[in-house]
């Protein structure tokens, strides 16, 4: 269905090819998962299939890519639109209409389908993806999972043979991600659509894959999923657990791991204590925030303690970002009291703010306004009155591979996060607020990020991380706050929180329940 024949692609202003000599064949009706480090060229490989590379991006493509027999060199993305459906990382960015139904019809309109065919296909797709109750809803009132399902539906209505998905679950909460993955699995099984999907969160998807395409240093290999999981740093927890225990074959799903873990579950487990923190540094008392008619926070009481990492979890739209904004002082509460030490955060400005609060937004590049890493670091040194070079030195402690003359926007997701932290931590703040920091980070990136936060917590910082990533929380978290519909439903230490509900259980916990084990390292001590 998809054939790469000796394909090499080089960006216009770069001498080194992104991928070279790719020879792959993906059979019809299979799901192929593309894995690789951040920036390894996963998106480039995906976009070669829909023709965006090289028609939209520019650059030089040598070799031949054929999709359903069509050569992508002579067919532009719009000519391939009937054969390849594409869903990007952020579905919101690709919506061209107002409502669900119109969005589903858009591709068919462009391709000139007959009106009665369009009508039928839209109805079928609404049923297939469970979107019928949402058909008249404006797109911006949908949750993240719903938006992603609409985007998949919109790619499907024109009846493509191939579906290309670039990190379809990276922005979603666990429930939304499962909803989307179930929909994809159904398409592969029922409609025999060929799916090519890139994803960092392998723990969610590797069990669905027929093949894994691994990209490393520009080389692509088509592998059997089990074989692809061996011998590199990109392994979901269940695979790492299997390898650590020497299980054969290495399990890819919780289900198969549980069968092999019968013996292990009989062991006794002395749960190591996580940090309990010291004094309270920030208080959110009886705080209510409303946007229009909808309550974003309802009478929330939360206290942050120094020397502790608190994970803030909950569905998309549950109020996580609002709680962070209230603590950062960018949103004044409608009722209630918010204090960081004795200060009301909405009144803090300039250096006084930086000494109390460090904030890293979802997209760290919002913080950057100069054209080089060095420029950002120098600006911070000037603002804070520190020795020239201190911010750059802090950055070097986090990552040593950043070229100071690079443009901040050209950095990888992990490097941007490191730069944002190096800047924002200049004045040794009391609390650090991070909104979804690990989007786009691969496993090694997350390990590095976890160690930065650990160092900060050891130094007495109070850290609040809003995240959907259960596996990350299992490794670095001390305490978990779960919000639902603007209310605190759980505020407990990480072990209690993550072992009490299957939706928030990390993979290792699912394998070893009822033992309260959260991470592979803890499992190794059994």
């Amino acid at each position, binding site marked *: 269905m998809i054939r790469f024949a000796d394909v090499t692609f080089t960006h216009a202003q770069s001498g080194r090819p992104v991928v070279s000599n790719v020879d792959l064949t993906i059979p019809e009706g299979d799901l192929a998962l593309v894995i690789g480090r951040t920036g390894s060229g996963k998106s480039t490989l995906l976009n070669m299939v829909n023709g965006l590379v090289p028609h939209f991006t520019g650059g030089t493509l040598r070799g031949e890519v054929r999709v359903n027999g069509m050569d992508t060199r002579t067919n532009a*993305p719009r000519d391939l*639109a009937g054969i390849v459906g*594409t869903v990007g990382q952020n579905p919101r960015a690709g919506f061209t209409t107002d409502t669900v139904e119109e969005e589903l019809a858009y591709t068919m*309109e*462009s391709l000139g389908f007959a009106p009665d065919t369009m009508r039928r296909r839209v109805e079928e797709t609404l049923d297939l993806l469970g979107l019928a109750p949402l058909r008249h809803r404006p797109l911006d009132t949908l949750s993240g999972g719903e938006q992603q399902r609409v985007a998949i539906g919109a790619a499907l209505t024109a009846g493509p043979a191939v579906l290309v998905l670039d990190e379809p679950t990276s922005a979603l909460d666990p429930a939304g991600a499962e909803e989307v993955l179930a929909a994809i699995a159904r398409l592969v099984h029922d409609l025999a659509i060929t799916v090519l999907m890139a994803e960092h969160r392998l723990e969610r998807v590797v069990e669905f894959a027929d093949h894994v395409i691994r990209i490393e240093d520009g080389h692509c290999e088509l592998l059997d999923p089990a074989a692809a999981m061996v011998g590199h740093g990109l392994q979901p927890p269940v695979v790492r657990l299997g390898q650590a225990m020497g299980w054969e074959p290495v399990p890819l799903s919780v289900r198969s791991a549980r069968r092999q873990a019968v013996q292990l579950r009989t062991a006794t487990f002395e749960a190591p204590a996580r940090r309990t923190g010291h004094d309270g540094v920030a208080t959110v008392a009886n705080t209510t925030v409303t946007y229009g008619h909808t309550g974003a926070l309802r009478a929330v009481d939360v206290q942050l303690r120094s020397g502790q990492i608190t994970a803030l979890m909950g569905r998309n739209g549950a109020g996580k970002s609002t709680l962070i904004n209230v603590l950062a002082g960018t949103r004044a509460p409608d009722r209630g009291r918010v204090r960081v030490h004795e200060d009301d955060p909405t009144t803090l400005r300039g250096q006084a703010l930086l000494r109390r609060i460090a904030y890293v937004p979802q997209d760290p590049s919002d*913080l950057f*306004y100069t054209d080089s890493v060095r420029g950002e670091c120098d600006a911070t040194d000037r603002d804070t009155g520190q020795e020239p070079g201190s911010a750059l030195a802090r950055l070097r402690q986090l990552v040593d591979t950043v070229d100071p003359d690079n443009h901040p926007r050209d950095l990888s997701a992990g490097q941007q996060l490191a730069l944002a932290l190096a800047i924002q931590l200049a004045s040794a703040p009391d609390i650090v607020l991070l909104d979804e920091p690990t989007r786009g980070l691969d496993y090694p990136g997350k390990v590095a990020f976890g160690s930065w936060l650990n160092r900060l917590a050891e130094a007495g910082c109070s850290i609040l991380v809003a995240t959907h990533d259960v596996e990350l929380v299992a490794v670095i978290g001390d305490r978990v706050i779960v919000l639902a519909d603007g209310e605190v439903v759980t505020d407990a230490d990480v072990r209690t929180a993550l072992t009490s509900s299957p939706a928030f259980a990390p993979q290792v916990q699912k394998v070893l329940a009822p033992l309260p084990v959260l991470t592979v390292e803890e499992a190794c001590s059994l």
Partner: protein
Amino acid sequence: MTNRWLHPGAWWLWALGLGAAATRTANPLLLGLIVAVAALVVSSRRPQAQWAGAFAVFVRIAVLVVVIRVGFTVLFGLRVGTTDLFTLPSATLPDWMAGVTLGGAVTAEMLAIAVIQGSQLATLLICVGAANSLASPVRLLKALPPGLYHVGVAGVVALSLAPRIMVNVRRVMQARRMRGRPTRGLRAAAESSVPVLESSLDDAINLAAAMDTRGYGRATRTSPGERALQAGLVLAGLMGIALGLFAVLGASGWGWLLLALGLAMAITGILVAGRRIVRTRYRPDPWGWPETLTAATGISAAIAVIAVSSSTITIPLTWPALPPVAVAAILAAALPAVLTPPPPVPWRTA
């Protein structure tokens, strides 16, 4: 009547009819009646959507227009009529500004002319505002003939990117504050423009890529000659329409001919262009009797007012008469407030 969207073209014909009537009458009573009718229909058939707030914005602009017009008359107006109200100190201007008076006597006639002429433009603006808040701009662009498809898409993209840019601005300003930098002043605006523009450009590029993979702009091949013919026809036609409108509003006789000719050329050009677009439309808004009624009431208001009312202001001032034909036609334009299907109810948000 079940809730549905009225065809956006019907609302625009209705509003432009009322607007045309406003530009062709100097009768303040009729102008006031037109504004009242527009406000009534907007208040009863406005959907709950973000763009439906356009009416209030246009009303404010309209008030501003009248105020500015009167202000200019008081300051720079030439003396007309004999009923002096008050006298402003007048300044002697240098020779090179001869012909401009500053200050001086202000008469009731001058003020009346200023208010009426300002109100004509203001009423037209209010009618356009009514159309803007009754008809969804996206649905209007969709209803464009296929030949104008590319223009329509450009409009849709602009409409969907504008709110995202506002979101980007807010986000970046928040981030600036959290970096401990000032959020007001020129410097803040200059520095934050970089991340705002970069993220907005990213949004635009992502949208363009998404549209490309979804078949946007797929066209059958045409010869360069055919494309030149079509572009020439549309351009010449649009110029004809513009000149014709200008002449009609200025009440010249040959304006109607030019307008008709321009319209014919533009429509031919659009039809020629439409032949090479392979696009179809999903569930287009139907044109039923409520649409016909709405468009007809607007157009007949224009015809009636143009037929019986005059756009010249007579001196000395007299209390305006109320021509019954014009009044009836304008009042009929309020019928859509009750005889059209109401817009779909707002969606419940989760």
